[in-house]
């Protein structure tokens, strides 16, 4: 997936941050520091959710993108 390796700047930064946070979570977990681990895990799960969104958008790009949808206010 070149999307996370240079083709998209935001994707690459997110991916790198994800790896960094994973390492940090492992580090704090091994040191048995609960609160930093919990906080970092919460952030990490959000990063992973954003990464999923990049994958979904990238995967659907040839077929569909959400800006094709027409907005009709109610």
């Amino acid at each position, binding site marked *: 997936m070149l999307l996370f390796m240079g083709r998209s700047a935001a994707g690459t930064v997110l991916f790198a941050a994800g790896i960094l946070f994973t390492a940090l979570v492992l580090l704090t977990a091994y040191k048995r520091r609960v609160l930093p681990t919990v906080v970092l895990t919460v952030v990490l799960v959000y990063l992973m959710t954003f990464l999923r969104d990049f994958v979904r958008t990238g995967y659907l790009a040839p*077929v569909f993108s959400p800006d094709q949808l027409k907005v009709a206010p109610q």
Partner: protein
Amino acid sequence: MNPLVPSPDTIPVLWGYFQFLPMLTFALHLHLMNALVAFTVNFGVAPLLFVQVLYGHLFYASSILMAVFWLAVIPLLIAAYYAAYLYGFRFGVLGRAGAAAIGGLFVALFGRVRERKDKEVGELATRLGSRAFPGR
């Protein structure tokens, strides 16, 4: 476009909202997974509904194509609820060896499923998993 996929409906607000809200609620779903089954299900519904707004035409076509697996979610959820209660109320009785045996059973069954595709890894997992059972 593919004839299986219907033309999408209109959306009431800009699509960015429907991009952001499922990400927010899906992360909550993942967090609550570690705490309570009921909250997990409740917060799983929200992102599913948002996804249906944005990707509805693709989502419905895919649901029909994988109908058996998609509908299997309901019996699997019922089984998961029972398993969660069993785990919550009776897990302590098993002790340490019992807990290891359950993990081993999972690894062994996974290996059995895997064997068809990757014989070497499958057999290894089956052997390793079985080792967790006392008396083997």
